[in-house]
């Protein structure tokens, strides 16, 4: 737990943090009048967009229990688990508020001007309390809009103070995969109740929540509010979420967990980005592991004794309002502890172990019990496990390349006959048989990768790695035709249904989505499975009405060939596709001559 400066570790200057904090507190004053405030930092190149909070209930949640909705993929195309096609969910009330800003204000235009400014301007999104989630959504929007098309552009920053949680696990996963997670920094006071509140079904505590929001609105510490019950409710719900999550990260094998989960309402929301916890005595603890942050959200607020309840409950409200003063002190002191995965894994289990070490003092200041420390260890350990799984998978890349090389050789050889699709479908020769063995071996490796993705056993970054996206595409292009050939050779379409609807293995769907996402394609990238469509059209043989569809397919095939993603061998004499074209008299007279000339 080395003491590096905050600036070095987070990549943000202290002045920016201070400025962001003061601007976001100030912005509350314009609540009700403006939805955002833009302010340039003097003598610097940052432009700060700050979002005011709101103390009205409907801005905190809408709908039932947790009020989550699917994100709009048009607006946030990255917020998904790509391979498995799972879409992130986000708090619906926050999303509405952000959409209102995007649609009804000058925000979009103002950001656009800043980006095109010749002086490199760094855009900083910030907000305190409910301003936080809006800043987060704005920053994600900015990343999608400007950085994804052009990664060389100046990345934005998002700094929040006492922000509630915005989205679910997939949202955090997606930001880590895109390597955007580092642009989000969330400051949380040790007892601040707001970030924890997202783990409670707010619909069940409306009355109490209204009182709490009124307290925040008045921002007066004399305001009478009895927060103990609310604090206990929030902590209980948080405990359920973190206990459930801890069972998972510890690799619990007890099926009872599933039975219980069916009986308990668990919040979908999870932290994202970097968290900086303020211990309350001028120390800061920086942590990035999202599983560990979730655990800390509960454990840092745990009470030492029942007698502490009234004081801590009250503090849980006051803390939400005291970021500015606390941070000022913290930044002056520069006593910062960084908890990276390798620290977590080896966390001392009790305070006394090395009480002298400054870093351990910080943990003590956060009030972490032995059980809390075990949970953090497990979170660190899980991440390490995921990394080592990834290494194991990376080692298989060589095997995949070898297998693909052999199949490419097979493909080239078959160009002298009917093309490898049909050669494989007939399977007459030893080469065809060997190709089949290769196909099965590769399927084994890929199925294993897909299984690991399903079980969340690989690091979040895995799906964003170019080497894997590329080899996935290559694999799909070379091998999927063989799977299709195998499918139609055994006439599986007759009892199971068309390949594309019923028979297509996940390993191809998944790798296809990787590429579509990486290259930001608007259309499906179906070049590897055009044979399936050709087969389905062949099965409708004798039906002249499908001529149009055959023609369309032919045009698409020609385009794919022009783009270099499909080989010309599909037109070879005697191939399934060539027969289809002939049947519908769509064959170009010159086609074969040209292609045959090119390799004989």
């Amino acid at each position, binding site marked *: 737990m080395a003491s590096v400066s905050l600036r070095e570790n987070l990549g943000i200057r202290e002045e920016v943090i201070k400025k962001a904090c003061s601007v976001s507190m100030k912005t509350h004053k314009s609540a009700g009048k403006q939805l955002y405030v833009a302010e340039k930092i003097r003598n610097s190149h940052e432009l700060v967009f700050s979002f005011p909070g709101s103390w009205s209930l409907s801005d905190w949640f809408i709908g039932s229990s947790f009020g989550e909705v699917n994100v709009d993929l048009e607006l946030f195309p990255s917020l998904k688990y790509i391979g498995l096609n799972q879409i992130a969910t986000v708090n619906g009330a926050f999303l509405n508020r952000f959409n209102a800003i995007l649609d009804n204000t000058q925000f979009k235009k103002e950001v656009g001007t800043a980006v095109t400014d010749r002086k490199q301007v760094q855009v900083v999104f910030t907000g305190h309390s409910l301003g936080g989630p809006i800043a987060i959504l704005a920053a994600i929007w900015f990343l999608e809009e400007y950085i994804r098309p052009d990664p060389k552009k100046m990345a934005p920053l998002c700094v929040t103070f006492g922000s509630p949680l915005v989205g679910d696990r997939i949202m955090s996963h997606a930001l880590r995969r895109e390597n955007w997670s580092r642009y989000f920094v969330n400051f949380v006071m040790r007892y601040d109740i707001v970030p924890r509140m997202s783990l409670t079904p707010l619909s069940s505590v409306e009355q109490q929540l209204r009182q709490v929001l009124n307290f925040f609105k008045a921002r007066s510490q004399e305001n009478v509010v009895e927060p103990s019950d609310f604090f206990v409710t929030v902590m209980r719900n948080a405990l359920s979420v973190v206990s459930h999550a*801890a069972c998972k990260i510890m690799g619990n094998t007890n099926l009872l*967990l599933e039975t219980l989960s069916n009986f308990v309402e668990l919040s979908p929301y999870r932290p994202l980005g970097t968290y900086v916890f303020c211990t309350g005595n001028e120390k800061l603890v920086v942590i990035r592991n999202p599983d560990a942050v979730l655990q800390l959200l509960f454990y840092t607020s745990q009470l030492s004794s*029942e007698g502490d309840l009234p004081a801590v409950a009250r503090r849980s409200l006051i803390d939400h309002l005291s970021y500015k003063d606390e941070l000022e002190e913290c930044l002056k002191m520069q006593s910062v502890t960084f908890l990276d995965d390798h620290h977590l894994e080896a966390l001392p289990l009790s305070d006394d*172990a090395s009480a002298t070490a400054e870093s351990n003092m910080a943990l003590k200041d956060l009030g972490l019990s032995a059980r809390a420390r*075990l949970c953090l*260890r*497990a979170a660190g350990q899980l991440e390490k496990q995921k990394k080592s799984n990834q290494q194991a998978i990376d080692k298989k890349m060589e095997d995949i390349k070898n297998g693909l090389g052999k199949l490419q050789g097979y493909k080239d050889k078959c160009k002298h006959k009917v093309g490898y699709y049909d050669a494989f479908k007939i399977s007459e020769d030893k080469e065809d048989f060997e190709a089949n063995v290769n196909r099965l071996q590769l399927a084994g490796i890929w199925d294993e990768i897909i299984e690991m993705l399903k079980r969340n056993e690989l690091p979040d970054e895995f799906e964003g790695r170019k080497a894997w996206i590329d080899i996935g595409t290559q694999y799909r292009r070379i091998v999927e035709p063989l799977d299709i050939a195998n499918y139609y050779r055994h006439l599986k379409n007759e009892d199971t249904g068309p390949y594309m609807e019923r028979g297509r293995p996940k390993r191809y769907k998944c790798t296809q989505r990787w590429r579509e996402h990486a290259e930001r394609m608007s259309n499906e990238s179906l070049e590897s499975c055009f044979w399936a469509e050709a087969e389905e059209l062949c099965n409708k043989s004798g039906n002249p009405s499908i001529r149009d569809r055959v023609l369309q397919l032919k045009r698409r095939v020609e385009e794919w060939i022009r783009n270099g993603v499909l080989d010309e061998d599909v037109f070879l004499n005697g191939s399934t596709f060539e027969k289809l074209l002939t049947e519908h008299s769509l064959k170009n007279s010159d086609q074969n001559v040209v292609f045959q000339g090119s390799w004989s």
Partner: protein
Amino acid sequence: MLYCQAFGQSSRMNQLPIFTSGFELANLAVNSNLLHLSLSAIAALQDEVNRFQQQQQQSLPLGCRVDRQSKYTIVALVTSPSCTIHHLQQGGDLVSSADLKQKNFPLFEFLCSKGNPCFSILTAAITLFYNCFTDLSCLRTQLVDPVTGNLSVDTPLIITGNSLGGSVASLFTLWLLDSISPRSNKRPFCITFGSPLIGNLGLQRAISERSTWNSCFLHVAANQDPVPSLFLRPHIPQFLASTPQTILYRPFGAFLLCSELGCTCVEDPEVVVRFLESMALESTGSQISDEYLLRYYAEILETLKARLILKRSSLLGLSVTDSLEAGIILQLEAIGAKRIQQPQHNKDFTNLVSKLKEREQIRMFNKRKALNPSRKLNEIKIKMAYLEWYKKRCKAKEIGYYDSYKNHLSESDRDVTKYKKFLTNYWKDLVEEAEKKPQKEGKFIQLTWLFAGTNYRRMVEPLEIAEYYRTHGNRNYEALRSEHYRLLEKWQKEDADRPTGPPSNKKKKEVAGALTEDSCFWAKVEEAIISCELLMAPTSSALEKQSSRECLIDFEKYVMEQIKNYAVSPEIFLRESSFMKWWGMYQNTASNRSLIDFMRNSRNVQYEKGCF
């Protein structure tokens, strides 16, 4: 066996840092409202039963009430206080499933399977269940829809009871679980408070054999309650003489173990026993009334719930750095196993911790091992691809893979033995495992595996047969056929389970590449050849000739049926095949007109194209 395996790997296992999440699970359970609601339902019913008893001056053996709340449906079962003590004192021994069957109460016979043929239940519990059978049957009809086999209540169903009432709740839940269709995804959840152990190892196995059943039970046991650990060791004098494994009580389901200090949740029966033992050291052991215990559970759970958000101070020593060990010590602290931590018990404590650690490691190791069965299936597919290639090549040689393998002349024939062995070992194990499981559980093996298994049988069993008849003089393969082939065939037939009409066009088209459906086809051919030889041999007796002729006529008929159904591979007509050899010997004696017509006119050519 399990132990040996695990120990062999122990050095590797120790490298895996693992955690125990018993606390987290217990948090979730205590924090949910389920325990509280269940206890309230029991208490309310108990009051009702007591009032009834005072008014009527008679005791009910068992009271039950269905409480339909907005979120859950709670079924509570309680025994009358006098009844419980009476029952536990009288019926503290086990009755075996065989005895139950003999006494005409085979209701729980469904728990028996081939791998686990019998079990025993606490006499007190099953007697009570038997005495109240009419009421319980009535209750069951309210809860399960007999047509769909689904639970007929709209909200999640909780079955609960305390002490012996909890034991009846467990038995009743088992009965419900058996009544529910395995396809239904809604299952009852049984929560007991302070119930005695009610069965032996057989019962524990029966429940854990069914993948989902074990997780339907949560037994709450507090450290001041003597009942849960009552039958842990054979305290009762008559047991002291001999205690064979079958009459030892064993836990099943998950246990929420608690003291006023904290709680933990464990599932591994071995660990449950150890924890109950440590807790038993603390309990007073005296007989306490059910009503007192009920209040005790209510209080303790209330306290625990209130304390969930409090930090627990711990005596965890500085020397503990291992996560698993720390987790285990914290759990022992939480369940109030104080005595064992005192200095004079130091050695016991260390032993206990290392035992518990070992259990967790074994569990984790087994979990990792069981993780990916489909990887193996892929290996199987590759081996099968090799055999397919072999078959293809033999066909090109006009001999067919059956006869090529039987002749065993070339290198490739010998390679095949390798693949065959691998595949057979794999399927034998798989079938053996599947067969041990209870009938309803997933219809033995999943469909994908059944397809693969059928494919395997049709491809590999002919090789087995070839090997068998290669030795001259061997007869009657089918009588000695390996069990796993027989079962695979049986399951496949049960799964197909529809009347076979005329062969579809698809089947006809595919016949050239298909495998012969009857994997014993070649054994029948071999028997026909032997019959033929007997028929022609001058040394054969008239009786032998007569029976051979009958066999051959049956065989002719059989072959023709197979052909009509497109159920045999056209490879049987290859020039060098045993089938053609038989036909060569027999054709002049043949009597089946259709077969003669088919063979003489070489209709097999059309057959192969699917247009015979």
